[in-house]
């Protein structure tokens, strides 16, 4: 069952070949036996999952429900889910039982009828590129359990790659969907900023955060993204605009598609083996009728510095609410109000979160604002303008997702800057707000390599169509890690 596509699962459920309860039980069993190797789930919600599966079966029996009804999913533990611990992988929220649901939780679970298997591990408050900053311990890459799965959505990708969930939600602030998808042979998409509601998704950097999905194919991703997307009056930054049909256009030919290859994404620093895989993919797409143009995104080298001002600044502010007063971790040692704050936050946040809060506090503080924050906002516009110009010439932009394949656990934990440079190719899309995705395009030394597609605002359907057409003629995405087949 766990090798079937979303479409196949939906058809089988509607044809009553198996029930949602059976399917859900199958996944729960796999989680029980296989997840100890991976640590992809923080919380498994077996009882709720089975209750939701029964409800889905009842809907299906009445001939109701949609294409996703009865198909279970994993939720990144950044989305608030009523009555279930929502930890954001932080000690700060270890005992936080959310009293409300995120909008995407309502959409996928209550409306679409997907039972939630559990809450997936991640980097603490989504800050990390290796899923090693979680309070609940690191997640292992199912392709090699001595290596990282990428981050911050490490639990999401490990679970889906290992067949511990058919599909999972994820979030992407600087590459947190695409980089881990690349490192685990998955298809992951970050839609246009404003396309998916941020309501109920615990904020890291508000102007960059966007929810999306990791799946085993573009077609699977399209169906789930379709159900997640849409206007939400509870989110001021949600786009009040109809959602395109993401599924129907998947079959379209990409003959004549204009693809841009940004020079800066193929410069020094890109591993030769990764480069070879990307070149192979370019060849395949050419055979499908795509044309390629080299172009320049001249400000892209400034993406990482810009991001490491904007994201920590917003994070330092967003995380100020965690003070031990109304919810969350409260130090038992506090003797006065100042200590309540300092000890609760000192104990509740891990080192990476603390580092980013301090950077953000520093760059916003008096005397530094103009040099750092204001300047970063200006450079952000330059980066945005690069993309605007590029999309006057091309339909999509193609490049690598990550500089290399998955690295060893612990390899970069003491060197934040080298960790941050993991996101060198993914950050620009967040700064500009455009949609971007990663999809499998080969292996280097037995480890998956991903390529990245970036599109113009609201061109999710176009990106998914290109990915789907590519996946019709290649088999990379169908490969599963040994031991998790």
């Amino acid at each position, binding site marked *: 069952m766990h090798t079937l596509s979303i479409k196949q699962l939906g058809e089988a459920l509607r044809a009553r070949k198996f029930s949602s309860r059976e399917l859900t039980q199958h996944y729960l069993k796999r989680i029980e036996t296989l997840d100890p190797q991976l640590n992809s789930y923080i919380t498994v919600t077996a009882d709720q999952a089975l209750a939701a599966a029964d409800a889905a079966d009842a809907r299906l029996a009445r001939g109701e429900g949609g294409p996703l009804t009865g198909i279970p999913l994993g939720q990144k533990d950044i989305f608030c889910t009523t009555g279930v611990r929502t930890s954001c992988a932080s000690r700060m929220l270890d005992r*936080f*039982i959310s*009293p409300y649901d995120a909008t995407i939780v309502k959409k996928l679970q209550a409306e679409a009828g997907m039972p939630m298997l559990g809450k997936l591990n991640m980097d603490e408050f989504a800050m990390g590129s290796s899923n090693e900053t979680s309070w609940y311990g690191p997640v292992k890459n199912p392709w090699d359990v001595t290596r990282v799965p990428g981050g911050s959505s490490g639990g999401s990708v490990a679970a889906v790659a290992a067949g511990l969930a058919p599909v999972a939600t994820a979030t992407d602030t600087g590459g947190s969907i695409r980089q881990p998808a690349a490192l685990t042979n998955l298809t992951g998409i970050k839609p246009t*900023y*404003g396309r998916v509601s941020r309501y109920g998704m615990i904020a890291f950097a508000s*102007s960059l955060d966007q929810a999306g999905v990791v799946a085993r194919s573009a077609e699977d991703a399209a169906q789930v993204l379709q159900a997640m997307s849409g206007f939400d*009056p509870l989110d*001021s*930054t949600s*786009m009040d605009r109809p959602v395109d049909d993401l599924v129907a256009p998947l079959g379209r030919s990409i003959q004549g598609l204009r693809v841009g290859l940004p020079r800066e994404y193929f410069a020094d620093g890109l591993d030769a083996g990764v480069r070879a895989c990307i070149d192979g993919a370019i060849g395949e797409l050419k055979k499908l009728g795509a044309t390629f143009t080299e172009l320049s995104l001249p400000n892209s*080298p*400034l993406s*990482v*510095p*810009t991001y*490491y*001002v904007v994201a920590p600044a917003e994070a*330092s502010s967003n995380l*100020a609410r965690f*003070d031990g*007063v*109304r*919810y*969350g971790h*409260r130090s038992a040692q506090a003797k*006065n*109000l100042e*200590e*309540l704050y*300092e*000890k609760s*936050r*000192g*104990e509740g*946040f891990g*080192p990476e979160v*603390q*580092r980013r*809060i*301090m*950077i953000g*506090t520093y*760059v916003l*503080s008096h005397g530094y604002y103009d*040099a*750092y924050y204001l*300047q*970063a*906002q*200006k*450079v952000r*516009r*330059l980066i*945005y303008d690069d993309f605007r110009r590029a999309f006057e010439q091309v339909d999509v932009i193609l490049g690598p997702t990550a500089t290399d394949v998955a690295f060893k656990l612990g390899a970069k934990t003491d060197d*934040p*800057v080298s960790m*941050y440079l993991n996101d060198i190719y993914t950050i620009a899309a967040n700064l*500009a*707000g*455009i949609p971007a995705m990663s999809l499998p395009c080969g292996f280097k030394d037995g480890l998956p390599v991903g390529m990245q597609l970036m599109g113009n605002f609201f061109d999710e359907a176009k990106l998914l169509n290109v990915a789907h057409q590519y996946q019709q003629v290649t088999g990379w995405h169908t490969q599963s890690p040994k031991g998790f087949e």
Partner: protein
Amino acid sequence: MSLSPEQIRQVAKLARLELNPSLTEAYAGQISNILELVGQLSAARTEGVGPMAHPLEMTQRLRADEVTQPDQREAFQAIAPAVQDGLYLVPKVIE
């Protein structure tokens, strides 16, 4: 731009973070490295460029002035660290 451990302690105070003293040195080094990385921004030519706070060219939407949120104090305070008589308790506030 490099920060001394003393500056790190000041920033941590502003952010209300009690640092593990054994980590302060390491933080100072790491944060200085990060600031060095972001220091590349100063070389960018941004005269006449408007700051971009947001990727969306949208304006603020307005909400009708209608009560939509009922009282849920009991549910909200069930997860609070310390409450009494409906109030959240904290160590004494000195004005």
